[in-house]
């Protein structure tokens, strides 16, 4: 390993990390929104939309992100929808993550006893208020572990972004190897930078899980 090479590459990796983080977290944010909307539709048993949600979840859970990104980036322009690579990345990740989040939220929602909702309704809350103030917080607590796992999974999935010419970590590493053949240095840096990105999320996740546990059991 050559130290100078590593020092020389660092700025490029930092640049790539920032881009990966930016698009990754935008995707995670979208995944949250999509997942929540889907969970709400399923929970409220809204007709028609329910079927749409099921279709969406199955479509995105059962196709690779790579294919989804290809579709967004290369197929949509053929019907006149042209999206920037960054937007494709966030949206693709958001759509994939939404499907996973929806399933995670669902299992969380199912863990909340039905009488909790009745209890809230009997206090005059509307079904939406009961969902917002009583059911969702409990479902969230129950699904924290799953949510954290999804976030990590999604941030790792950013490594396929290079196919739509986004200069993420993976792209940068491959590019540098192709040009200068410093394989060992490049790949070591790649591992280190993924760890820099993901370890804090894992740690934060376990802290969050512990903090939320106080309210988990016993009504």
């Amino acid at each position, binding site marked *: 390993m050559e130290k100078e090479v590593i020092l020389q590459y660092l700025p490029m990796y930092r640049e790539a990390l920032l881009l990966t983080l930016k698009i990754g977290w935008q995707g995670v944010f979208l995944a949250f929104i999509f997942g929540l909307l889907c969970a709400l539709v399923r929970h409220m048993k809204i007709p028609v939309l329910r079927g749409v949600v099921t279709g969406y979840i199955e479509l995105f859970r059962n196709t690779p992100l790579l294919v989804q990104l290809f579709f967004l980036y290369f197929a949509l322009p053929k019907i006149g929808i042209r999206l920037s690579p960054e937007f494709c990345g966030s949206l693709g990740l958001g759509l994939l993550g939404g499907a996973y989040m929806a399933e995670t939220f669902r299992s969380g929602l199912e863990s909340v*006893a039905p009488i909790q909702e*009745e*209890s809230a*309704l*009997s206090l005059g*809350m509307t079904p939406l208020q009961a969902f917002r103030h009583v059911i969702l917080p409990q479902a969230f*607590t129950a699904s924290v572990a799953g949510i954290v796992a999804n976030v990590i999974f999604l941030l790792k999935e950013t490594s396929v972004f290079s196919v739509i010419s986004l200069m993420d970590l993976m792209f940068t590493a491959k590019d540098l190897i192709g040009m200068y053949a410093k394989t060992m240095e490049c790949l070591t840096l790649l591992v280190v930078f993924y760890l820099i990105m993901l370890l804090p999320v894992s740690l934060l996740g376990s802290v969050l899980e512990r903090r939320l546990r106080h309210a988990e059991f016993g*009504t």
Partner: protein
Amino acid sequence: MENEVLRIEHLHKEFEGNVILKDISLTVHRGEVIVVIGPSGCGKSTLLRCVNALEDIQGGQILLDGVPVDRSSKEISRMRQRIGMVFQSYDLFPHKTILQNVTLAPEKVQKRRKEEVSQEAMELLERVGLADRSGDYPRQLSGGQKQRVAIVRALCMHPDILLLDEITAALDPEMVHEVLEVVVSLARTGSTMLIVTHEMAFARAVADRVLFLDEGGIVEESTNPGAFFTKPQTERAQAFLKTFDYE
């Protein structure tokens, strides 16, 4: 009648072809305490759940202050604000503190001011001896304490009537008393209540009127609880009360 709070007219409830409640009619007046007793499965809990629209009904109607309650979702939420309900399993919100459990609905549903609601909640908790637990979470309380909080939570909405659904059935025997004492004091201060219970001594002490339900219908109704519990008129009520006696 002028001071009528709740009227149930010819209530009919079926579930998957089974008749659960048939032709129940009942009027509850302001300040009145009505106790519903009967063997398990007679439909008494279902009756309370129908009143609060947690169960749909197949016939008859329910009137609040003489006005039929339209079973559209908006009307139902409004109606439920005026009907307090306490369940057998307390069902406090586990992610909220005791105080938050009490203040959540007054703040979010009635849009009352936070300080005013908190103050009232603390006064009510004080009345049931739990003011010092206001910052705790439900899991830190005993069953009896939780049930007292559940009563306070319902009271803080200023309901016109309280429905109590076997509120001591899940409690250890030594905790039954502390909960029922709260109910007795509510009865003394003029609260209107419809109570389902298996505690006969309590029923006798607190009831202005007793309903005996069996197989989904009102079998016996008495405005003299003392007389009813000593010597019920119908054979079925006699047989039922006998199951609480030991030689």
